[in-house]
């Protein structure tokens, strides 16, 4: 293996630096203050999240990455209000949140479209909950469905859609409520590689065009670097912030950037951070085939 001569992931071009300076001056949308979460389990108390603090600025795209089981889902569920923190607090626009609400949209890893509703009625759901008239909700839902490019399928039922289309509807459904922040928990995790890449570009396009801040959980390093302004790297047991990385890859993003030095440098750094030494249990291999069949 050749070692590439990579720049430091901390190096930022002027353009990127300027972007971050501007970002940091914007309003804080989500302010997470030392939240922790303990679960009771038969083996005693488990500390899933320990004193995590961070802020997201308006229209920022933040990715959270970390080894499996480090508490990513727990974190985002607390932000959504689906789980109550054991300590600390979450502020949205400066006001503490308690319980789930339409001001924080959520897209889940599994498919959570209501299977008994058509695409259109799914997107209308939140609008109707907020007391809109059916007519009003319908025309608005159409706009959102159009935005994710599924106008042809507005009367289809979820089971008729492919995985990627389902998640697009889920995004439209969450956005239709005009949330302050969109929380996404590995939304593309179940999609095949090609669809996933397409969905990532689609998501960036949507993000660019509407006033939305996004917090996105993934365990895919490429996905995190491709999407994020900043990456929150968690470590496990207990889940804590390991490092916050300002992604030095300039905008607008395109898949071709995945082989640029700054992209690779960031990826290398992420790999170092995520790498878990305790998982490297060596295998115990003996040769179980004829010498003549050797693959070397």
């Amino acid at each position, binding site marked *: 293996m050749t070692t590439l001569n990579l720049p430091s992931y901390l190096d930022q071009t002027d353009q990127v630096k300027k972007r971050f300076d501007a970002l940091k001056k914007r309003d804080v949308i989500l302010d997470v203050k030392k939240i922790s979460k303990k679960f009771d389990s038969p083996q005693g108390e488990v500390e899933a999240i320990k004193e995590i603090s961070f802020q997201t600025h308006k229209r920022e795209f933040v990715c959270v990455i970390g080894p499996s089981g480090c508490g990513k889902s727990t974190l985002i569920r607390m932000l*959504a*209000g*689906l789980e109550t923190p054991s300590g600390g607090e979450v502020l949205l626009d400066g006001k503490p949140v308690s*319980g*789930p*609400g*339409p001001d*924080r*949209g*959520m897209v*889940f890893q*599994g498919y*959570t479209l*209501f*299977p*008994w*509703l058509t695409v259109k009625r799914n997107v209308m*759901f*939140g609008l109707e*909950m*907020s007391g809109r008239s059916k007519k009003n909700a319908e025309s608005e839902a159409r706009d959102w469905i159009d935005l994710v490019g599924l106008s042809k*399928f507005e009367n*289809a*039922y*979820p*089971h*008729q*859609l*492919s995985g990627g*289309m389902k998640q697009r509807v889920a995004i439209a*459904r*969450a956005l239709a*409520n005009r949330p302050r922040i969109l*929380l996404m928990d590995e939304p593309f995790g179940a999609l095949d590689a090609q669809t996933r890449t397409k969905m990532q570009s689609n998501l960036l396009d949507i993000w660019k065009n509407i006033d939305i801040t996004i917090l996105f959980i993934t365990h895919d390093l490429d996905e995190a670097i491709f999407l994020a302004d900043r990456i929150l790297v968690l470590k496990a047991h207990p889940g804590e912030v390991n490092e916050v990385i300002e992604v030095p890859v300039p905008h607008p993003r395109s898949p071709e950037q995945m082989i640029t030095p700054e992209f690779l440098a960031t990826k290398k750094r992420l790999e170092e951070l995520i790498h878990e030494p305790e998982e490297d249990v060596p295998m115990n291999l003996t040769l179980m085939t004829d010498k003549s069949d050797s693959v070397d």
Partner: protein
Amino acid sequence: MPSSQKNVKPWFAVREPLSQKRATCLTFLSFLMPILIWSAFSYLPFLWHPKVEITQPGSVTWLQPGTLIDKAIFKEQQILAEKNNTALPEGKPANPVYLPAPHEVVVAFYTAFTTEPKRRSEQWLHESLWHSVTIVFWGFFISTLIGVPLGILCGTYSVFNKLFEPFIEFFRYLPAPAFGALAVAILGIYDGPKIAIIFIGTFFQQVLVVANTTRKLDIALLEAALTLGAKNINLLFRVVIPGILPNLFKDLRILLGWAWTYLIVAELIGTSSGITWFITQQARYKNFENVFAAIIMIGIIGLLSDLILATMGKRLFAWENSRGKIA
């Protein structure tokens, strides 16, 4: 390998669906097999046939044409007649009266409807059948009216779960027929106690089954609804209920079958009535072909109503089963 490319699917493959043709074939066979066995026992004289039906009494005075007697006794009488040099009794192998042949039952399917009741107070078959259907309907309907909402509440809110389910769990082990006498004392001797027995037999199971089905709704759907701003009553009516409907419908189909099994007990309480009454009466008169016809009729009514409900379910919940993909 240059073996034939023909792709013949095995008959026995774990959890693999059969081809349409094979499936239809087997369904047909599942009905045909018992009928064939029944026919064999009825029409093949060397199979079983423990009795002899007398065709010629001969010299045996106490025999008449048509009498059924045991084979052994018939033999004795023949030997006796032979010894005395009197006319031999003649007969052919026959089955006991309680096993009528298929064609007799088929005929009874028609004649049972046209047989006039022996006594004035008795009902025609179609009246009996209809009476039974109404009893099952009312018992099941009242049970569903209360049981389904209660079950959904128990499955949705822990308060209702803890408040009702422990007692219901206890009560469902009490055999419904045990309440027969009590039901008669309270509700009189006519249809009231019968409906009550069906109700008791169905209701407690129903609450628990529906509650369980409600609890099986994917919690992620509720969480999604919460993040979309749904609250309380909207969660119940816009998510829980539509979400469980297909499974609820399936539950009700199964429970309706249970309700029918309680019918037999219910109709023996107070004044006997309905199809059960018809069956006991006909058995008393030894019209076993009518008994068989009536039993099969109950089966057919059950099967048909279930088929209708199943088709209805498929129509209503098209969003659930179909595998069709647009993209």
